């Protein structure tokens, strides 16, 4: 069968599966719509959290980024997994015991302040919208490349699918579709990885394969040594060496970790399980399922880099295989024969280099580069869609709850009935999908950059306030608001200055202590902590009922929601 047929088949079947699940899990109350009635099994929640978390960026872009960054790519691998330790140990169990629906719920109640609640709503909306635009774009790219439909048509189809199960089932529908989506995406990621590992090294486990020797037919020798050698030959840094300054790597890793632990769409997943213990367990399961992909990605990265260098380096342009031309047609591979010798010079020196390869294509093109069968390539398309759609749905739910619950029910219109609130939630999710789709079709040029910075902003605003809210009884409204404003203002200004106002100065010489805008969130977070602690010392302690609420969420079972 042709690639096209295979792709239609796998994508069609997975979409059918999501629809069936959606019809079987309709939501009838706000509790079901917001938190799936808090009846989700920890294992199911672990699977759903993993799919919720791993977006188009994890599935499509990450291995490609690591392939081009070498060891420094570990900032993403560690940053996006290490945050789960913080989430499991410092946040998820306590917020579960608090037992409400959203993150602004916690911040508004804990800091007895509508201002704090509003600040939290605005942050949640900002972070979620930038993120979701990226997902919709990912959906469009996969559709256009593999089903050869227009990117815009792809986005509209994606919107339709998400609309169907998110509006119908809310969190309940989203949870069980995410479980299915995890299975699809992990299968789609692992199968090509195992194939390529076998092909290059004869080892079926990619995690071990990229530390093994290459087959004789590929010239033997340890794969990573060969890669170090090839990289250096072409003027790049050795693959297993770090290039960035140690302080910058520390800051970026920390900012991604704390940002992960502060992202609302991940935190709310822990409201859906029945108990504190279940919240801890499902954080463990979630990280286990995420780790399967995250430990495979660096192996895929090394294989992809090896395959790419082997195929293109100093090879004649006319000998390039078919995948090279297909991606050239999308402008994601660009070849410019500067010295006119008809061969591809792919080197570090920009003046001599003739080939530009978009990092995003590495995972999508990898099976083709390795010459794998068509059904494997088709599987990757279905996996990319599962990753993008599952994350988009989780984000859309945060947006809808922020509006119907935090803004309307808890702030502007406290008198509305549950039925009205549920209707508002459905309307909100409908409009959120339209907005997300609009940004997917007309992406503002800065989306990709802003998504990366969303972590810095979450780290410097949400993370300290949530942690202090649990671990310091004395932390009060004044401290929290001052801390949030300081952290996010500092971080946002630093990023805006270097990325948008004065991009010419955006290099290590001008950065503060050599910390890049990606890593500045870690510093913003420290400022947030410092300011919050300082201000709270000189302002009145929180009211007694808030203090006893904090004492309560520290011990399981003190607040029983039912």
């Amino acid at each position, binding site marked *: 069968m042709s690639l096209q047929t295979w792709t239609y088949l796998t994508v069609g079947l997975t979409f059918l599966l999501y629809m069936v699940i959606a019809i079987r899990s309709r939501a009838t109350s706000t509790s079901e719509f917001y938190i799936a009635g808090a009846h989700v099994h920890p294992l199911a929640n672990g699977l759903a959290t993993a799919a919720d978390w791993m977006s188009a960026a994890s599935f499509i872009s990450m291995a490609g980024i690591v392939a081009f960054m070498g060891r420094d790519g570990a900032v993403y691998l560690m940053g996006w997994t290490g945050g789960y330790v913080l989430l499991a140990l410092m946040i998820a169990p306590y917020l579960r015991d608090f037992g409400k629906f959203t993150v602004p719920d916690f911040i508004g109640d804990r800091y007895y302040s509508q201002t704090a609640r509003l600040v939290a709503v605005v942050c949640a909306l900002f972070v979620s919208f930038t993120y979701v635009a990226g997902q919709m774009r990912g959906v469009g790219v996969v559709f256009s490349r593999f089903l050869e439909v227009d990117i815009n048509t792809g986005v509209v189809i994606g919107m339709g699918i998400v609309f169907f199960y998110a509006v119908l089932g809310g969190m309940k529908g989203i949870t069980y579709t995410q479980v299915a989506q995890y299975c699809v995406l992990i299968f789609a990621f692992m199968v090509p990885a195992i194939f390529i590992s076998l092909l290059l090294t004869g080892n079926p486990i990619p995690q071990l394969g990229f530390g093994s020797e290459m087959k004789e037919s590929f010239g033997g020798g340890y794969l990573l040594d060969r890669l170090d050698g090839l990289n250096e030959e072409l003027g790049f840094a050795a693959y297993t060496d770090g290039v960035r300054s140690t302080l910058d790597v520390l800051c970026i890793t920390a900012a991604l970790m704390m940002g992960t632990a502060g992202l609302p769409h991940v935190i709310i997943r822990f409201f859906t399980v029945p108990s504190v*213990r279940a919240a801890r367990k499902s*954080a463990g399961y979630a*990280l286990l399922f995420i780790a399967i992909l995250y430990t495979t990605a660096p192996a895929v990265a090394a294989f992809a880099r090896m395959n790419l260098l082997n195929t293109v380096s100093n090879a004649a342009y006319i000998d390039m295989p078919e995948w090279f031309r297909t991606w050239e047609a999308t402008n994601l591979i660009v070849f410019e024969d500067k010295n006119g010798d008809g061969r591809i010079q792919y080197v570090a020196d920009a003046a001599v280099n003739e080939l530009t390869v978009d990092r995003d294509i590495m995972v999508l093109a990898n099976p083709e580069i390795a010459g794998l069968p068509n059904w494997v390539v088709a599987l990757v398309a279905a996996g990319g869609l599962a990753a993008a759609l599952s994350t988009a749905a989780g984000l859309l739910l945060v947006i809808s709850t922020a509006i119907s619950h935090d803004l309307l029910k808890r702030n502007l219109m406290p008198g509305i009935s549950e039925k009205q609130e549920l209707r508002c939630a459905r309307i909100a999710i409908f409009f959120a999908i339209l907005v997300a789709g609009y940004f997917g079709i007309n992406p503002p040029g800065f989306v990709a950059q802003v998504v990366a910075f969303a972590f810095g902003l979450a780290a410097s605003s949400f993370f300290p306030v949530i942690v202090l809210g649990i671990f310091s009884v004395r932390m009060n409204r004044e401290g929290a608001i001052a801390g949030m404003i300081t952290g996010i203002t500092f971080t946002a200004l630093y990023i805006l200055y270097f990325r948008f106002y004065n991009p010419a100065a955006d290099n290590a010489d001008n950065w503060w202590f050599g910390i890049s805008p990606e890593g500045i969130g870690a510093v913003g977070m420290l400022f947030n902590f410092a300011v919050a602690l300082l201000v709270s010392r000189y302002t009145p302690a929180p009211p007694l009922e808030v203090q006893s609420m904090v004492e309560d969420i520290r011990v399981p079972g003190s607040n029983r929601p039912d």
Partner: protein
Amino acid sequence: MAVRPFRKNNINATGDKMANKKQYWRDNIRLLWILLGLWTFVSFFVSIIFADGLNEVRIGGFRLGFWFAQQGAIYFYVVLIFVYIWLMDKLDARYEVDEESLHRRHEEN
């Protein structure tokens, strides 16, 4: 309900309840310091600050600093969370705030 024999951590006895809550929290915090200390050591020291030095050591085709940064740290995080779950289960049981005890008390009241 019937008279229950006195037990060391019987948090149903109202007088002890607050003291027990405080002690539970102190034990919990101590556990967090230890686990997060290990987390910091592996994430920031082993995988980043000492990575160049560790790269001199080789295991098979991996240089050790590189392996920790791209593989080892992630395996360590998974193990760390499951150790935490296990230790917290024990702590909960000792202070009778595990699910079984909570459920029993809920029924009794």
